[in-house]
């Protein structure tokens, strides 16, 4: 098998895998913590298990070009199954593991999935729930046998059986896998990722081996990644970011991916692994920082003093030192002391001691948050990309970090701005098509072969791209001034107390906002002040909490004054929602982006009340609990007016 692999170009993922098994067969490829101990798979082990899975699938009647759904947490065997499917010329289709059964239904039907590989009983139950609506369903394989003893359905199998079958098959037909791998082409679709779709039904984005390999190779070269990196894979496998960082880049550079023991132990596992390369959406960095700050408030006075003193030093010079810019000798000495006493231990607690490069993407990151991590010496950078571009459009080069931009176009990528401000992208990493949706494909790729991102942005003088908002979200106030809701919402969300914000204002005379408070941060704040509360709804309705949020929004208003055309977008009225916006209630996408239209419709009464000048509004909302039950939450919400600030030369309102 290795001989055939070496004779071909390394232009598909299976060929890359077999090559790693040959050149670094005894090096760790994957680790997973099981029963408290990190278990390791070498590249050789991975190749062997992938071979067993692939041969097993083939024996079960798998055909080239078929889609295989993969649902579960990040686990080595899940990644191996992706490889196995790719080996046979099939298309792995990872799904969000926390999706409820009905959300999975559309994708499973759309992609005509016959084979499903799921993690555990929970996912098997979802499939069984949908069984009658999935006439094409062939076989379901599960990885974790816990609780599966009484499932007697003939189409449900333990993946170990499949692998056993595959091993036997491989002994009898050792030529099958090399032949299948050789038949693959770089232009075959390597993976299909469904976009969560802020509007309409999700679409399957077909990405070829060539696209993902070029994106991953560009990224690894850009940051000089080696085979010695360690990465923690804990983000949903269905997200393009995880596929790029945990799968594609590992396949290119041959580094080790580490899977956490469970979703709750990620923080611990992070500390134990100490990744050298780290990728997380801003939300994760935000949570880390919030935890640090909460714990600092409980620390002794001396520790607090030290922390705050050295953090001022870090804010002054940390980011500059990281960028290699000139810094005074005194500050260098102080920063050195700070590293010893504060930043070093802090990074260690966060599990980020060994990080060489960290990336964040998926949403805007607050400048304070970004600066915090950079100033304590973590090389945190931003990137920009979509599922359709393998999450590879712009990267921030080392030493050229700007807090408000997403960096320069990545190697091999061409970026230009259309007349309406929309960002257009061209390069080898573009999607092949939307699955069975030529109409949608034609809509996003223009005549010149550019992908239309739907984001509005602009280049600054040094060629860094700055994202303003979704092009379609950018609207106008009744007086004609520009209205960029995401821009304002992001400003609001930078406050630790605000978890989610939705602002309205398009074609209206003023801007109003819905707020979701962060139960952790606000809860802690309330405890400190002796404010008793029973739960989210109760806490959200507290007079004091309203005051707290009001202060935050008024600060945003004062900042908006200086934002030129956005000065008219100051928020006039707001309310705090009685429930958290939740993907289970379709209010957020699975990647936790607000579905603006849906929210506006669902809470229409509240919007009317905001604009009608009422000071209270009763609302009752249906909610879905995690176990699928339905319930109702009702509240009488308070609406508050806010102070706005006059722009110089104009009267204050």
């Amino acid at each position, binding site marked *: 098998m290795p001989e055939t692999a070496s004779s071909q170009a390394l232009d598909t993922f299976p060929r890359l895998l077999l090559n790693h098994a040959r050149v670094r067969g005894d090096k760790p490829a994957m680790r997973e913590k099981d*029963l408290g*101990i990190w278990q390791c798979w070498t590249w050789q082990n991975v190749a062997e298990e992938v071979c067993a899975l692939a041969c097993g699938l083939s024996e079960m009647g798998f055909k080239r070009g078929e889609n295989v759904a993969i649902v579960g947490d990040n686990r080595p065997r899940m990644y191996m199954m992706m490889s196995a499917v790719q080996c046979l010329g099939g298309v792995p289709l990872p799904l969000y593991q926390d999706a409820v059964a009905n959300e999975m239904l559309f994708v499973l039907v759309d992609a005509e999935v016959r084979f499903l590989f799921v993690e555990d009983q929970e996912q098997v139950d979802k499939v069984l729930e949908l069984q009658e609506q999935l006439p094409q369903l062939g076989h379901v394989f599960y990885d974790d046998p816990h*609780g599966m003893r009484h499932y007697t359905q003939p189409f449900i199998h333990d993946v170990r059986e499949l692998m056993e079958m595959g091993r036997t098959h491989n002994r009898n037909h050792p030529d099958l896998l090399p032949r299948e791998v050789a038949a693959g082409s770089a232009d075959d679709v390597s993976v299909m990722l469904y976009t969560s779709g802020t509007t309409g039904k999700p679409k399957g984005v077909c990405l070829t081996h060539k696209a993902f390999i070029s994106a991953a190779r560009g990224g690894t070269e850009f940051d000089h990644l080696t085979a010695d990196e360690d990465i923690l894979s804990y983000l949903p496998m269905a997200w393009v970011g995880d596929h790029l960082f945990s799968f594609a880049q590992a396949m290119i550079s041959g580094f080790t991916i580490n899977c956490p023991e469970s979703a709750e*132990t990620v923080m611990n596992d992070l500390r134990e692994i100490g990744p050298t390369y780290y990728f997380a959406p801003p939300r994760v960095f935000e949570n880390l920082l919030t935890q640090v700050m909460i714990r600092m408030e409980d620390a002794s006075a001396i520790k607090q003093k030290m922390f705050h003193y050295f953090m001022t030093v870090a804010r002054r010079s940390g980011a500059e030192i990281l960028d290699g810019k000139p810094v005074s000798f005194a500050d260098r000495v102080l920063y050195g002391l700070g590293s010893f006493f504060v930043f070093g231990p802090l990074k260690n607690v966060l599990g980020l001691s060994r990080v060489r490069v960290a990336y964040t993407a998926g949403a805007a990151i607050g400048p304070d948050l970004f600066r915090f991590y950079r100033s304590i010496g973590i090389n945190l950078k931003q990137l920009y990309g979509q599922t359709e571009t393998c999450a590879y459009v712009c990267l921030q080069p080392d030493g050229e970090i700007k807090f408000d931009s997403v960096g320069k176009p990545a190697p091999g990528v061409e970026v230009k701005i259309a007349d309406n401000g929309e960002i257009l992208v061209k390069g080898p990493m573009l999607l092949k098509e939307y699955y069975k949706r030529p109409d949608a494909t034609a809509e996003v790729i223009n005549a010149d072969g550019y992908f239309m991102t739907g984001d509005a942005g602009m280049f600054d003088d040094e060629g860094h791209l700055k994202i303003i908002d979704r092009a379609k979200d950018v609207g106008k106030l009744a007086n004609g001034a520009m209205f960029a809701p995401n821009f304002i919402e992001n400003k609001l969300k930078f406050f630790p107390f605000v978890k989610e914000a939705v602002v309205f204002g398009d074609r209206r005379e003023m801007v109003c906002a819905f707020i979701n408070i962060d139960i952790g941060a606000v809860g802690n704040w309330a405890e400190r002040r002796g404010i008793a509360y029973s739960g989210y709804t109760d806490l959200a309705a507290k007079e004091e909490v309203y005051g707290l949020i009001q202060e935050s929004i008024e600060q945003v208003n004062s900042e908006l004054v200086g934002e030129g055309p956005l000065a008219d977008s100051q928020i006039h009225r707001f309310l705090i929602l009685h429930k958290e916006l939740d993907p289970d209630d379709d209010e957020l996408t699975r990647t936790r982006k607000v579905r603006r239209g849906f929210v506006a419709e669902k809470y229409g009464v509240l919007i009317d009340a905001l604009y009608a000048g009422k000071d209270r509004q009763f609302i009752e909302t249906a909610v879905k609990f995690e176990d699928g039950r339905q319930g109702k939450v009702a509240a009488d919400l308070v609406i508050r007016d806010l102070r706005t600030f006059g722009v110089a030369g104009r009267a204050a309102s």
Partner: protein
Amino acid sequence: MSRQIGEVVLDLKKVSLSFGGVKALTDISFDVREHEIRAIIGPNGAGKSSMLNVINGVYRPQEGEIILRGQHFAKMNPYKAAQAGISRTFQNIALFKGMNVIDNLMTGRNLKIRSNLIQQAFWWGPARREELEHRAKVEEVIDFLEIQHIRKTPVGRLPYGLQKRVDLGRALAMEPSILLLDEPMAGMNVEEKQDMCRFILDVNDQFGTTIVLIEHDMAVVMDISDRVVVLDYGKKIGDGDPDAVRANPDVISAYLGASH
């Protein structure tokens, strides 16, 4: 269900227990069969916890006898009970609050440790091998109860529901053949109760453990137990499968109330 309810493993005959003039249990007889889930219910002060305490030898009954797998005991004592494979959880969680979850679960393995104090102190040779074996067993319990994330958290810092789960884990670490649960779901919210039910059923199903449980939540009792014995003022007033007990007029008037 694959589990088969088997022979009687534990038989209590005419057990009476009194504290001075207070009669806690009067002439109680009932049996527990292999692999079944047997519930003991009754109003406050009915003698439920006393009953469990008699079974594992914390209390010595003045009259009656306990037959455990054919062996007659006039008095049980906790050590003998534990050796015979009976383990239990407590109504008011009995864990070492300052120790972490692993250490607490390791105490459940105590009876099975063969190496002596000195060997353990030096963590040498067989003692070391043995401890690793026990530690592996504890990890299996942790995996089973899905408490990986709190492995190293001191038990005192955990929320109540999780402490209860750790308490169950400590009992499970003994690999008991009979598990006594004293109000495993008291003070829990609905979600925690559901989890706990799931775990109890899984223990029973996967390891074939016989379970005797005391519980106040009638819905839970009726759902998960195979047979129910009802106590009131230290006397047995009902015994049978959940439906029979629910229909028993004495039980209705004493405990369930007329509306049921």
